[in-house]
């Protein structure tokens, strides 16, 4: 183990155990990941199995989160839905993160005509309330899960483009870049070898925060009926289905998926703070 690696591990350990919230964040994150991976195999009931006789029963020993209007076990559905919601969120963030940061880095580095064009485009995109834009995109592209991923990705692009562009503009005139150029490195090499890895930290922090937002976005779209269709278990449509029973007191149908959403987004936000502490102490709140 090199001294550098040891130093990095030390920082990680210091951050993780120094602030209990960070530990909580990573713990929860692990739990959520495990649920996404293992839930379909481990849940007590079939999430799709309906049973009119046990419809709308409150939480009990048999159905830990109660049942919905079709008699399905809410606990199983909430657990299984983790996978889909995480896939959508991760998919959208990875897509927009990679494309956005590449585009942003390129226009930040070279500037010029394309910088103007892309920046204008980003301004236009950001002129729409982003959720509304996502809605319209899904409506226009078609009501499928994949389109939800694309729509969420598009809506998130501006953040990454701006971030990467800003970082690039700051760094492109730094001393070591000049030195590399004098040393004979071409633009592409400088971009990929030196500059983009330096951007990695703020990008990762942005991505973790974005994950929370992507989950909310996807759930919101599903809540409105865009994207995921019943009977697929997904937190957003589960809340939508449960909404009409809230006024008559059957809270469990909507509340449990809602809680799952909250906990997940909360975890991602905490993780963002923890990552920020690890990767860039200067940005600590």
């Amino acid at each position, binding site marked *: 183990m090199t001294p550098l690696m040891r130093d990095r591990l030390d920082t990680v350990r210091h951050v993780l155990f120094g602030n209990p919230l960070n530990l909580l964040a990573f713990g929860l994150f692990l739990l959520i990941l495990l649920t996404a991976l293992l839930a379909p195999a481990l849940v007590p009931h079939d999430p799709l199995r309906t049973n009119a006789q046990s419809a709308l029963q409150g939480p009990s020993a048999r159905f830990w989160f109660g049942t919905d209007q079709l008699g399905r076990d809410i606990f199983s559905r909430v657990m299984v839905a983790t996978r889909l919601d995480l896939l959508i969120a991760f998919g959208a963030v990875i897509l927009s993160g990679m494309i956005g940061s590449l585009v942003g880095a390129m226009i930040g580095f070279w500037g010029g005509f394309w910088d103007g064009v892309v920046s204008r485009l980003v301004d236009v995109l950001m002129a729409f309330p*982003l959720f509304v834009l996502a809605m*319209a995109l899904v409506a226009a*592209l*078609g009501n499928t899960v994949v389109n939800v991923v694309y729509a969420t990705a598009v809506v998130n692009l501006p953040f990454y483009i701006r971030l990467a562009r800003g970082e690039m503009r700051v760094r492109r005139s730094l001393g070591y870049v000049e030195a590399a150029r004098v040393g004979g490195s071409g633009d592409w090499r400088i971009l990929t070898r030196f500059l983009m890895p330096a951007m990695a930290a703020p990008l990762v922090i942005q991505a973790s925060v974005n994950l929370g937002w992507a989950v909310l976005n996807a759930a919101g779209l599903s809540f409105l*009926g865009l994207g995921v269709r019943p009977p697929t278990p997904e937190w957003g449509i589960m*809340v939508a289905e449960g909404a009409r029973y*809230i006024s008559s007191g059957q*809270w469990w149908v909507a509340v449990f998926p809602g809680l799952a959403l909250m906990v997940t987004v909360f975890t991602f*936000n905490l993780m963002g703070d923890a990552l920020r502490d690890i990767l860039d102490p200067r940005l600590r709140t």
Partner: protein
Amino acid sequence: MSRILIRLASAVPTLFGVVIVTFLLTRVLPGDPAVFFASNPSMTAEDVDAVRVSLGLDQPLLVQFRIYLVDLLHGNLGNSLSTGQTVAAELARRLPASAELTLVAFVLAIAVSLPLGAVAALRPRSLVDHLSRVIATLGVSMPTFVTGLLLIFLFYFLIGWAPEPIGRLDPFMFEPERVTGFYTIDALLEGDPAAARAALAQMMLPAITTALFALAPLTRMTRAAMLEVLGSEFIRTARASGLGRRKIVVTYAFRNAMVPVVTTMGMTFSYMLGANVLVEQVFSWPGVGAFAIDSIINLDYAPLQGFMLMMAAIFILVNLTVDVVIALLDPRAAL
């Protein structure tokens, strides 16, 4: 004044871009727009073709865009196939409902978050400080539609303070005569304070739901801005001159902190416009957001287009207002 006009002028390219995007959204993306715009999925091929011609969809794209632009400049946003009215008329009819809700929510959010953030900065590590941080973290994690439902469950079902969440007014009451479209104002203008109160009661839960959403970023920013300002050197000069605490906190600290906070307000307003759609859905609020959703479900795309344009236009206007307010607050800010 001329600077305001220049600033307005700079928004035009963005507005134009917005128009282009809304146009492209329904014309270029995969799927046959004619089928979308046709009112009946069981129409024959000839019917669909007829619709296509009548909507000008067989023309080259640029021609279509020109027609679209001309229509737009005449205020023609097309027709809503599900209601039969012009989109412009429908939006105008429903806008006050959304506007009333958003404005009340915004005022609520500011009234709570600004003092909360300021006091949190003035008393670090106190109860208020911790409270503000909890609110900030929770507020960012809670989905608006879940918050709305939880509030309904708590305040309508369990405690019974709130009225049934079925829209703007109790079904047994009559709408006040329409002057502004804001039920509270119109009812008061009519001399009917009972109706005004009823309208306000119906608005409380959805307004609080939307306000909660805005609370987090505003509180966080106010606290951060106040903390930063309180550590500046001119505050030290003010203290050294013997200025009273109130003067220092309000005129010297708070006012300076407002500059970044106002910027955050603009951004938050944009998020609120988006969240509004969800809130209107949860509370059956007959605003533009609900209209947009209904249109999507009915495959009625002209209203969606009009809705998008309107949202973007409102947001651009809000940003302009933010810039003007900041220029008023901070003489260093060039318009």
